[in-house]
C-alpha cells in the first residue's frame, strides 16, 4: 500500500546556495498523525509548504521527491499538480485570522471551495458545511455562516478552519501550529477536536509544532527537525520513553514542568549545539561532494 505522504531525500536551497532542507525523508501512512517538531527556523513550516506546493519563490527544491498517495508531485504538470493538491490535501493554518478573507462572509468562503474546485452544487455544499460545523461543535451555524471573520473569536475562527479543512475529505491535512495563536484553554479544545475529526474521518495529519506536550497527546510518530535535518524519528511512545539523539533529550529537558517551572527552564546545552553544528556540517559536506 502506498503511503499517504512520502517525502524522500528532499533538499531545498535559498538563492545564496544555503540548504534550508537537508535530505529530509518522512512518510505518513493513511490515517496516521505524524508530528514534526523543532524550534523556530528548523524548516518545519517549509516542509508543510513544500507538500502543499506553496513554497516561497526564493526557495528551490534541488533534490528528492514528494509523493502524494504514490503520485510524484515533481513529475506532474503545474496545473495537474494544483488540482491533485487541492483535491487531496488541506491546511489548518497557524493564524486563524489572516487565513480567512476579511471581506467575505464565512459561508461563502467555506462553500466556494466545494463548489468551484470539486464541482458540487450549492445545496450539497451547504449541507456538508453545516454537518462539519456541527462536528466542530458550532451550535449556531446560521449566525457563523453569515459572519465576517473579525466578528468571531479566535477559537471560533479556528473551528471554522478545521471544519473547512475536513469538508472536502482530503487524504492529508497539514496542521501548521494550529494552536499556537490561541489561549491555553482554547488550545486544548481545538486539539481535542482535531484528534476527534481525524479519527472519525480517517485523515492523515502532518502536525507541525514546537510543543512536545502537544506531540505526546496526539501523534503516533514523531520526526525531530533541526536546521532542516531530521535528527531523530521514532514512535511517539518510544521517543518519550527513550530519546536517542542528544538534541531530543535536551528539548525534553527544556520543557517546563508544572511542579517546578523555573528550575526546569533550561536552554539547550552548548555541547549539544556544537555537536549538532558538526553533524550538519558533515551532512552538508557529504551532500556537496556528489553535487559539486
Amino acid at each position: 500500500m502506498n503511503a499517504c505522504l512520502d517525502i524522500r531525500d528532499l533538499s531545498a536551497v535559498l538563492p545564496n546556495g544555503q540548504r534550508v532542507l537537508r535530505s529530509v525523508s518522512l512518510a505518513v501512512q493513511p490515517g496516521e498523525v505524524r508530528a514534526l517538531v523543532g524550534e523556530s527556523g528548523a524548516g518545519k513550516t517549509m516542509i508543510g509548504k513544500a507538500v502543499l506546493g506553496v513554497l516561497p519563490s526564493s526557495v528551490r527544491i534541488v533534490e528528492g521527491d514528494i509523493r502524494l498517495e504514490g503520485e510524484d508531485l515533481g513529475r506532474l504538470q503545474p496545473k495537474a499538480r494544483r488540482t491533485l493538491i487541492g483535491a487531496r490535501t488541506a491546511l489548518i493554518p497557524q493564524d486563524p485570522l489572516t487565513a480567512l478573507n476579511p471581506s467575505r462572509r464565512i459561508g461563502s468562503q467555506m462553500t466556494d471551495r466545494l463548489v468551484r474546485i470539486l464541482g458540487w452544487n450549492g445545496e450539497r455544499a451547504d449541507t456538508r458545511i453545516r454537518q462539519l460545523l456541527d462536528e466542530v461543535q458550532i451550535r449556531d451555524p446560521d449566525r457563523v455562516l453569515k459572519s465576517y471573520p473579525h466578528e468571531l473569536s479566535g477559537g471560533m475562527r479556528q473551528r471554522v478552519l478545521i471544519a473547512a479543512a475536513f469538508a472536502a475529505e482530503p487524504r492529508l491535512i497539514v496542521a501548521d501550529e494550529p494552536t499556537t495563536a490561541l489561549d491555553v484553554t482554547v488550545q486544548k479544545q481545538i486539539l481535542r477536536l482535531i484528534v476527534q475529526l481525524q479519527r472519525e474521518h480517517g485523515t492523515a495529519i502532518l502536525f507541525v509544532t514546537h510543543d512536545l506536550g502537544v506531540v505526546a497527546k496526539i501523534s503516533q510518530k514523531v520526526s525531530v527537525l533541526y536546521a532542516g535535518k531530521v535528527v531523530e524519528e521514532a514512535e511517539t511512545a518510544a521517543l518519550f520513553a527513550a530519546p536517542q539523539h542528544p538534541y531530543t533529550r535536551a528539548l525534553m529537558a527544556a520543557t517546563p514542568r508544572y511542579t517546578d517551572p523555573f528550575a526546569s527552564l533550561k536552554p539547550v546545552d552548548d555541547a549539544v549545539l556544537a555537536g549538532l553544528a558538526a553533524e550538519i556540517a558533515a551532512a552538508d559536506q557529504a551532500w556537496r561532494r556528489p553535487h559539486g
Partner: protein
Amino acid sequence: MDENRAQGRSVSPRLWLAGGWLLLALLAAIFAPLVAPQDPLAQDLMLERLPPFWIDGAEPGYWLGTDSLGRDLLSRLIFGGRIAFIVAFAAAFAACLVGSTLGLVAGYFGGWADRIISRIVDVWMAFPPVLFAILLVAVLGTGLSSVILAIAIIDWTRFCRVIRAETMGQSRMDYVENARIAGYGRIGIMLREVLPNVVPSIVALLSLEMGIAVIVEAILSFVNLSISTDDPTWGGIIAEGRLSIHQAWWVLVFPLITLIVTVLSFSQFGEALKTRFDPVLR
C-alpha cells in the same frame, strides 16, 4: 468591538456634511436650467457689479451679485458645476479603471509585470502634473473630452501606486495562500479574494480623485484651456473675478469658496466611505 462602533459614529457627521453638500451641488448642476434664478449668459450693463444680497445696492433675484458684464454670479456657479461634475466623474472613473487594473496586476503578479508597470509610473510621476495637463490639452485641443482625457492620463498613476501597495500586502496574507492550496487559478484569486479587500481604498481614492479633477479643471479653465469660453466654469469665473477684485470681490470669492468646499467634501466623503466599506473598520 464597542470602540469600533463609537468610531463609526464619529465618522457619520463628516459623511453627512460632505455628502450633503455634494448631493446639493450635484442636484443643482443636473437641474441647472430649473434652479438657476437667471440666464448665466445674459449680460446687462445696467446691472453690472451688483453686490451680494446683504450689501446695500443688491437687487432681488441676484443673490450673490453680478460680474462686470452684469451676469448673475449664482447662476453662473450653478452652471459651472455641470462642467465640474462631468469632468470629476468621467476623469476619475477613467483614471481609476486604468490605474487600479494595472496596480492590481503589478501588485499581485509581481516580477516583470510589476517592474515594467512601476517604472512607467515612476517616469509618469516625474512630470509636474499641472504643466503636464496644460501641455496635454494644448496638444489634444481644448474641449470637454480633451480635459477629461488629460486628467485621466495624468492621474491614473495615483491609483496604480496605492492599489499596487495594497495588493502586495493582501497577497502575502494566509488566505491567499489557502486559496492557492485549494487550487484556485491566479486570476481567480486576484479577482475574487484580493480585489474585494482593496475596494475600500479604491472608493476612497475615487472620491479624492474627483476633488482633484475639479481643481485641475478649474486650473485649466483659469488659463483658458478648458472648454469654450462661453460656458461658465468655476476656473473661468475665478479668472474673471481676479481682474475686478477691487471693484467686485465677490466674483472672485464665491467661486473660490465653492471650489474649496467641493474639493474638501470629496476627500472627506471618500474617507468616510472607506470606513463604511471596510468590514473590519465598520
